[in-house]
């Protein structure tokens, strides 16, 4: 698919990073020195002299001139170098926006990057790498130097011919997705930790948001998100400059957590998740949304004058959802540097509710309060359940969720056969905690720098502080989505479609599994652990991703499971409860250690119960241990477990949960 000739596609701006400059310089005789198709002195290469296609148009101008050094003296918008003015023509202001977007989307501060590559660069600093280093997957000490770059003349010819056709971003991703996921945004150590795919995607989003609230004037670009036009002038004079724009143009980063007021009672009330997943997928396609999961949303927005937060989140609010938002408003240069952690004083907390009337009457001839959400008047006529005859007063929103689920034929097993056959069900929730993720990423980055340099800890800390969150978070979220998809596929393979209901979306963060045999609850965890280890092996000890499982009969009210499943993440990544019977919370390595003990084979339930009863009577762990150790030779696995530090409560919970499954 192509775009009109005069449309700039910012996602392509770094396409030059896909080529191997050294190899192509040898092959073509041109001096490929940077990813701008320029020589050592940033002069544009004459591609036609090597019989290569020469694209034209704004996208090509962005590819060639998005580096600050090629703009002109002091990055002034009104006096670019003649070559830039000639090639970019009318698209020059758009190229400036690409530069701003590029700065915003970078994974580290550009100023630090330049400092490091100067004369003071350390002798033993690791060389550049053409392969992205994945912080959560790749061994920090095994850094690859080579990558799958385009290194032949014919491939370069194809690439330039491709650009000359004005391809859309989707076509670009389709053609080069493999390369983009393997090549880093920046080759220099230690900035090679984000993929070019994420960077290009972010630049595209930032660019379009920036463009939506700027206008061209005869004095350059002006921001129209304030009462007056803001040009972004330099400190000396009146000429707008890129640094001036970055320090004077205010934007907002918004982190949202979406919740709902409903207390789902019947299976079809889970339609609330269907709607939420739909809305999040729609919002995720918008340029203002940087990343999202089922209940989390990160947005990049101009000031309130251009678009109000309530307007930006209108689809969610109209559908009855509640959005808790952390809003950071600051100039662009501040927004790009982890503002939520660095400048909490600039962060505003807001909870957005759907419209709520001042009062809701409660009499027999006027609407009552909705029995599911308790925040809207119900419809005058009650909903009648044909099977039980129960009447419920619901508002239009809650009734809509129920109707949606029913219309789409969802959750029939949950509310039908599983309930009738009386199988226990396991509600399975996977969640990603972004606050914790940021701490984990910083630690992984620290380990990466430490493994590849002999820098003192203070210097390493400085590097860690330069790390920016957005690009890494997006990269991580993409892998997280892969984990969700693989996990759901594996469960379907292991349990069969008849035993699974996916509650939300194609990459379900919430699903429910019928436990038709004993031991299946742990099989779910085993599956999660296997998939987790393949995607995030370095996060096992301190995981920002949690797996929560809540087990009961199918009739047990969902909202009580949800309280457990949606609780803020605890210290342990794996949390299992069998309602009213047992609760087990362990880290991933501890869970694996427990599984490896093979305790299912040990018929130790009564022994564990006895020891637990001693503790209940005496409140003494010592006496509990004494009771457990008495005659423990008959239970070698149990002995091994206690010597590894597992408590009687953990072991008893494990035994109880392992025994759940089959008809109740």
């Amino acid at each position: 698919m192509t775009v009109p000739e005069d449309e700039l596609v910012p996602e392509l701006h770094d396409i030059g990073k896909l080529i191997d400059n050294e190899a192509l310089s040898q092959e073509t005789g041109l001096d490929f020195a940077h990813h701008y198709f320029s020589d050592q002195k940033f002069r544009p290469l004459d591609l036609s002299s090597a019989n290569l296609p020469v694209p034209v148009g704004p996208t090509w101008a962005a590819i060639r001139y998005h580096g600050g050094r090629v703009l002109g003296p002091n990055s002034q918008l009104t006096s670019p170098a003649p070559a830039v003015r000639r090639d970019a023509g009318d698209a020059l202001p758009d190229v400036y926006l690409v530069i701003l977007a590029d700065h915003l989307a970078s994974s580290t501060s550009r100023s630090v990057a330049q400092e490091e590559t100067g004369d003071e660069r350390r002798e033993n600093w690791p060389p550049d790498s053409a392969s992205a280093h994945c912080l959560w997957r790749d061994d920090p000490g095994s850094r690859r130097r080579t990558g799958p770059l385009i290194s032949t003349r014919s491939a370069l010819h194809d690439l330039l011919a491709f650009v000359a056709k004005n391809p859309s971003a989707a076509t670009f991703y389709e053609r080069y997705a493999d390369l983009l996921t393997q090549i880093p945004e920046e080759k220099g150590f230690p900035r090679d930790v984000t993929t070019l795919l994420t960077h290009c995607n972010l630049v595209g989003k930032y660019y379009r948001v920036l463009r939506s609230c700027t206008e061209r004037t005869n004095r350059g670009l002006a921001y129209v998100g304030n009462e007056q036009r803001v040009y972004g002038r330099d400190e000396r004079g009146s000429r707008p400059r890129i640094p001036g724009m970055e320090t004077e143009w205010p934007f907002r980063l918004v982190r949202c957590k979406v919740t709902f007021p409903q207390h789902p009672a019947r299976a079809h009330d889970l339609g609330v998740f269907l709607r939420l997943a739909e809305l999040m997928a729609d919002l995720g396609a918008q340029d203002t949304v940087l990343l999202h999961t089922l209940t989390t949303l990160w947005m990049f927005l101009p000031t309130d004058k251009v678009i109000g937060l309530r307007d930006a989140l209108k689809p969610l609010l109209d559908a009855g959802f509640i959005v808790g938002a952390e809003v950071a408003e600051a100039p662009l240069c501040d927004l790009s540097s982890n503002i939520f952690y660095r400048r909490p004083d600039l962060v505003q907390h807001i909870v957005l509710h759907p419209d709520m009337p001042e009062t809701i009457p409660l009499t027999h001839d006027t609407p009552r309060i909705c029995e599911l959400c308790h925040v809207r008047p119900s419809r005058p006529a009650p909903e009648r359940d044909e099977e039980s005859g129960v009447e419920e007063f619901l508002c239009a929103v809650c009734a809509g969720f129920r109707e949606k689920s029913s219309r789409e034929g969802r959750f029939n097993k949950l509310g039908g056969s599983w309930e009738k056959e009386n199988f226990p069900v396991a509600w399975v929730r996977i969640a990603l905690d972004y606050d914790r993720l940021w701490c984990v990423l910083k630690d992984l980055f620290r380990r990466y720098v430490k493994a590849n340099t002999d820098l003192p800890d203070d210097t390493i800390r400085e590097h860690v502080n330069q790390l920016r969150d957005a690009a890494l978070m997006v990269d991580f979220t993409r892998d997280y989505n892969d984990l969700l998809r693989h996990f759901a596929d594996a469960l379907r393979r292991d349990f069969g479609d008849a035993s699974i209901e996916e509650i939300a979306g194609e990459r379900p963060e919430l699903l429910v599994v019928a436990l038709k045999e004993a031991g299946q609850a742990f099989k779910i965890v085993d599956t999660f652990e296997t998939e987790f280890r393949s995607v995030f092996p370095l996060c096992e000890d301190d995981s920002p991703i949690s797996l929560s499982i809540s087990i009961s009969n199918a009739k047990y009210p969902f909202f009580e499971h949800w309280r457990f499943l949606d609780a803020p993440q605890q210290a342990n990544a794996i949390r299992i409860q069998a309602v009213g019977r047992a609760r087990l919370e362990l880290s991933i390595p501890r869970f694996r250690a427990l599984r490896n003990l093979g305790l299912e084979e040990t018929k130790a339930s009564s022994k564990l119960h006895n020891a637990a009863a001693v503790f209940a009577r005496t409140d003494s762990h010592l006496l509990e241990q004494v009771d457990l150790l008495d005659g423990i030779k008959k239970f070698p696995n149990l002995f091994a477990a206690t010597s590894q530090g597992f408590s009687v409560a953990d072991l008893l919970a494990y035994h109880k949960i392992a025994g759940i499954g089959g008809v109740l």
Partner: protein
Amino acid sequence: MSFWEFELTAEALHIGERIKKGTFRPLVPAFKRGSREYRPLPYSTAVGSLREYLGLKWDAPLHAAGYLTEGEEKELTIAPRDNVTGVAKLPITIQYLVRVRGKIFVLVDDQSRALPERFEMPMGGLRYKGLGLCRLNKASKPIEPEKGEGFLLTRIPDTALPVFGIDPEQVKGDGPFRRGYLFKPTSMSGGVYVKSLFEGSRVKGFDFLLEDGHEIR
């Protein structure tokens, strides 16, 4: 304005939420701040119970609210009988707290001056099952509250916010406010649900109902 501060203790207490599907009656959720955990004692619950104790009419002016600071969560499954037929309906599971501690603050006025130093009064749900008997001990003298800013620890109707030092103007529009409805009687047998401010809202008001902090999750 001054308030009586009462220390509340109870063996077993159920302060519940209105929830559909009557087979499960959960407690109001806990509001966590660091290692501390609070449960709201909503204005409607506190005022209703005190009116009942004092033998006041449904519309007698009285203002009170509080929160619980301690209590161990338990569950109880019962099968209530229909009074007419004597037949047990579906069993219901009730969440309740045992060994409960908390505080109630009552506006000092003509009505509340009648409250003794120490007294017992029923509060919350499932009283017919023996839950809800609360002991209240009054502090020696009323407190003169100071203004502060922090997280609200209880639930208060918008109309009663000024009593607790919260300017209703500050909670208009969007902000760090959690919203919901509380029941307000309008007759002996009827009432309306009124828009209310819930626990976790960050507001300026009298400090005794606020917990300092910076974060709303």
